[in-house]
């Protein structure tokens, strides 16, 4: 808090806004105005996140804002804002068709803000315990949202998500306790043993064996939340059965937050000379996710499940990039993460519109979109081409960087470029196959115009295309700097 100026600090606003908005929205009985309060709260959060660039708080025992997490915070609040705009129009359609009641929407909007609060706190926390609790809060809020439609499928998805998510979160806690145990003989009892900034300076003296064991638990625990294979079973169901804005937020944001947690611990391990190298573990899980999810894409019959598997594939790619490490691969990983968030949420916005006009999520019943809804259809085409890694989308650039940096590694490691390229091609083929059916041919029934706003979708796609053609210099410098920090 900047007491000197009397103005509220960015970080205070960033954390207080979603908490207050959640408290306001929980009893708010008018869903339409509630949706716009949701948007307004997200806008304030986004502005506060931008404010962090100018006015960065000092690292305290609980809060830490550094060059790494600022990227995540800005990306998160931005996508949360655009998704809230999309959600506002999407939700009014769901109200008209009676799929959701005003009571459902009270939960929905309150939980949206709780999710935002949990994610932001997880990103800016300087304390392992606080980070753990806030990721748990974020998970809980999404479980409630995934089960919102109360259909048998939605309940099954929420149950599965809850069970696997809880096990993941429990393993992560055990890992956190082990990190504390490793830190305790060196930094002493109490608070300090869980503070990042303290741990990072003293980690060389920790017992490497205990650190290794802790990292395995943390990777399994938070890796479940990232959706890395073989812990990805909850992800497609949760994406397919919840409201579409939640699919966009899950894919675009929550997975990144969990990945951020893994990255922090990777950094910690990398600083201890005796500890195992965390890279190969991340690379293994990343490649497995890429190949498994790529192969699974072919047999999908549900449009949201299709793109959920594509998210697993891309999280795998990002984990692989950070696993390789080095300035270029880390840069590729960061860029890919940002591009994936923007592109995938744009795709989910388009899918949300398509599902509402066609009244189904079945791929076989969504055909010929470019004929019946040209703007929507072509936007989806652009989005899918971008996520499949075709130029000039931003994803192409990051995938290209990733493949070249894999080739540039020393001999046995460079062979990994082969499965990497194979995985990319498998996924590419599957997406093209599905896309041709969705976009072209004779349109399936359901040709009513889309009432919801295309704004968020077009904005995201424009950003992705621009990033593919031209990345602003300061952004590149910032990413290079962060990539170096990541080691």
């Amino acid at each position: 808090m900047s007491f000197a100026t009397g103005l509220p600090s960015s970080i205070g606003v960033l954390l207080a806004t979603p908490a207050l908005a959640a408290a306001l929205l929980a009893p708010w009985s008018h869903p339409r105005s509630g949706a716009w309060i949701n948007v307004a709260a997200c806008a304030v959060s986004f502005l506060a996140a931008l404010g962090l660039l100018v006015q960065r708080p000092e690292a305290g025992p609980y809060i830490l804002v550094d060059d790494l997490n600022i990227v995540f915070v800005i990306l998160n609040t931005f996508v949360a804002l655009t998704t809230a705009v999309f959600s506002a129009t999407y939700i009014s359609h769901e109200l008209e068709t009676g799929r959701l009641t005003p009571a459902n929407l009270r939960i929905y909007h309150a939980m949206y803000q709780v999710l935002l609060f949990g994610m932001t706190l997880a990103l800016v926390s300087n304390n392992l315990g606080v980070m753990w609790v806030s990721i748990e809060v974020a998970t809980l809020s999404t479980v409630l949202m995934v089960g919102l439609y109360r259909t048998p499928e939605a309940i099954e998805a929420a149950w599965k998500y809850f069970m696997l998510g809880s096990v993941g979160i429990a393993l992560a806690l055990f890992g956190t306790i082990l990190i504390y145990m490793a830190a305790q003989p060196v930094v002493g009892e109490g608070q300090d043993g869980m503070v990042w900034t303290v741990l990072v300076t003293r980690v060389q003296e920790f017992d490497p064996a205990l650190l290794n064991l802790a990292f395995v638990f943390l990777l399994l625990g938070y890796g479940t939340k990232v959706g890395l294979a073989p812990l990805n079973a909850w992800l497609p169901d949760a994406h397919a059965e919840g409201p579409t804005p939640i699919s966009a937020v899950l894919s675009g944001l929550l997975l990144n937050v969990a990945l951020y947690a893994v990255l922090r611990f990777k950094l910690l391990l990398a600083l201890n000379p005796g500890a195992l190298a965390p890279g190969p573990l991340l690379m293994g899980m990343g490649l497995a996710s890429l190949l498994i999810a790529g192969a699974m894409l072919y047999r999908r019959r549900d449009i949201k499940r299709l793109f959920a598997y594509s998210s697993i594939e891309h999280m795998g790619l990002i984990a692989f990039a950070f696993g390789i490490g080095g300035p270029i691969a880390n840069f590729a990983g960061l860029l890919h993460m940002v591009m994936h968030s923007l592109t995938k949420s744009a795709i989910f916005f388009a899918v949300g519109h398509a599902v509402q006009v066609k009244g189904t999520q079945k791929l076989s019943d969504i055909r010929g979109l470019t004929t019946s809804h040209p703007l929507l259809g072509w936007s989806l085409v652009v989005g899918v081409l971008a996520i499949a890694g075709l130029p000039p989308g931003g994803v192409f650039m990051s995938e290209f960087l990733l493949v070249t940096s894999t080739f540039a590694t020393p001999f046995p490691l460079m062979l990994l470029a082969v499965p990497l390229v194979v995985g990319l091609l498998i996924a590419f083929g599957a997406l093209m196959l599905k896309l041709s059916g969705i976009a072209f041919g004779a349109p399936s029934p359901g040709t009513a115009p889309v009432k919801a706003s295309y704004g968020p979708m077009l904005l995201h796609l424009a950003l992705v295309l621009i990033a593919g053609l031209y990345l602003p210099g300061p952004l590149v410098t910032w990413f290079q700097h962060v990539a170096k920090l990541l080691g």
Partner: protein
Amino acid sequence: MPQPIFPHLVFDVAHLLAGAMVLISLMMLYQGRLNALIKVFALQAVALAASVAWQAQAQHAPHLYVTAVIAIAFKGVVIPVALHRMVARLGIHRQVETALATGPTMLAGIGLVALALVVMLPVTATSDPLAREDLAFALSVVLLGLLMMVTRRNAVSQIIGFMSLENGLILAAAGARGMPLVVEISVAFSVLIAFIVIGVFLFRIRERFDTVDVDALDRFRGGRA
């Protein structure tokens, strides 16, 4: 000053209580009936509370008493009573279906305890012995809880498996000397359990299927392939 009669009393009692938790976890594995399972779970909560309270006394950490009280009041009394009522209302108190027979489950359980000891003891050789043994037992309880979640098909017993897993985590957190936020974490877990599991899910699942057998959910897998 006279020599104490039991020089290792602090350690021995902690060992006994944590060991009791592992034993109770193994007992849970072979409980056939839901009501019996709930009672055994309540017993574990009591053992957890005693264990945490002992740690509070041994470490001179009064805040841990709060965790102990939460354990005994919430998991020892409130949750079991609520689960008993729910099981009675749902009429599923007779039999627990397991995916695996009792024999193999018990063998797997013993294997997991051995694994926990083999993994934890060498790694923590330099740690405080009190924390060290606690951590090995805690990992056993965590793994046994996971095993229970995997082998049971019934939603109530899966929840009990999860809560028992969580007992193991609280034991580990209490054993780590001076660890901050233990109370907050145990509160967060209680909220997790109370809110989601009891409040929302079971009632919705019951509403839709008239059963809390997770197998029933599998029939509704739309668009899976």
